[in-house]
């Protein structure tokens, strides 16, 4: 019997070890799995490498994980946020390192990692500092740069609905990185606002097939980062 459901966010992230690489879904607040991130803060794993498009806002969610000094390396495309000084402070201090990746290259590196493609050539970034030191090749007359696939020990993502097999639906622009991260995480952990029995999701509408999902935890009313930040919240 296949049942990915676990009872709590604490149980879902209980085995994340120090030094793990963790992909975290979301573009800005849309799709950010705040409850899973807060559970990871409570759990205490440190020395993490986090792969996520941004670095969070305010002092909740991903920004709170960074502020708690759990993240020694960020792989992301846009670490600046108007309302958060958490990442800049730890980056300037030298505590949290940064690998900056163009957003589309980041998405494709994650997709490739999940799809068993170790590396690929792309024209994005050629002639820029982000391509320096990387292998180049001219293909069909166009100069390209070699980029490597990304995988992770864990992927933490947010869905609107999941069934017990781990089939997923998303909410609007909260989908963003979640489908490719689900593929690239060796253990993919999902917080879903609704959890249903197999057969209740239309197979034609499923966005992420359950084969990519290991654990589903029901978080019925997820918090919104912007509302927490507006209320001046910080975690823990």
């Amino acid at each position, binding site marked *: 019997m296949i049942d990915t459901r676990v009872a709590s966010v604490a149980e879902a992230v209980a085995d994340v070890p120090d030094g793990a690489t963790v992909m975290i879904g979301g*573009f*800005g*607040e*849309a*799709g950010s799995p705040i409850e899973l991130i807060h559970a990871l803060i409570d759990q205490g794993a440190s020395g993490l490498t986090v792969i996520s*498009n941004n670095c969070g806002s305010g002092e909740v969610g991903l920004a709170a994980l960074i502020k708690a000094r759990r993240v020694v390396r960020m792989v992301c*495309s*846009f*670490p*600046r946020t108007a309302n958060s000084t958490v*990442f*800049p402070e730890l*980056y*300037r201090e030298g505590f949290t390192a*940064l690998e*900056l*990746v*163009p*957003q*589309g*290259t*980041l*998405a*494709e590196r*994650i*997709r490739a990692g999940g799809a068993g493609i170790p590396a690929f050539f*792309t*024209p*994005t*970034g*050629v*002639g*820029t*500092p*982000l391509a320096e030191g990387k292998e180049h090749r001219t293909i069909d007359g166009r100069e390209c740069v070699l980029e490597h696939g990304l995988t992770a020990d864990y992927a933490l993502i947010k869905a609107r609905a999941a069934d017990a097999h781990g089939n997923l639906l*998303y*909410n*609007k*622009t*909260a*989908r*963003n*990185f*979640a*489908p*490719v991260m689900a593929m690239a995480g060796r253990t993919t952990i999902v917080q879903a606002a609704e959890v249903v029995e197999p057969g209740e999701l239309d197979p034609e509408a499923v*966005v992420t097939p359950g084969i990519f999902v290991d654990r589903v935890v029901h978080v019925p009313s997820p918090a*919104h*980062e*912007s*509302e927490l930040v507006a209320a001046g919240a910080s975690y823990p």
Partner: protein
Amino acid sequence: MARRVAEDIPDGAYVNLGIGIPELVARFVPEGRELVYHTENGLLGMGPSPEAGGGEPELINAGKRRVTALPGASYFHQSDSFAMIRGGHLDLCVLGALQVSRTGDLANWSTGAPDAIPAVGGAMDLVAGVKRVFVITQHCTKDGEPKLVETCTYPLTGRGVVDRVYTDLAVIDVAPEGFRLVELAPGVDVDLVLERTGAPLHVPAEVTTGA
């Protein structure tokens, strides 16, 4: 500037507008043209911002501001979104600039300042893949330095990628021979544009003045 860019976007185009001034272009699309706006965080068919206080936290644009989805819209993941961009499926993007060189190099993501937090987002992918790249920018910096230059001194976003530049003074193409004046803004003469452009500017025999 935004109005002038909007005039040049053909009916039926799939368009990505960068964050900031490029976003204003959507306000000026001439009556009767249907454009489909792409926002790289995963939406085609992006509509205007909702009323103040409205909207949803998980329906946002690349600038992380709340937007709406028009009838016929679709949502998709990041890898598909950048397949649209890198794969040449988008007709046009409009971006801001720190500098544009006479060969169409664009610098728009970093001043290279040692204490800055570098952040690039999707700009390098957009310039690498979208069919036509328009830049909208002030002709000079706040300090009066030309932004249209011989060679960019800031870190590049892409090499040889810009097709056309819209400034407060003029519309200028990046042509095989370098910068080429297309149109003057109202009340601006050629000498002023020549003086404020940091690279040779080819001036055709006939140059129109915009409305």
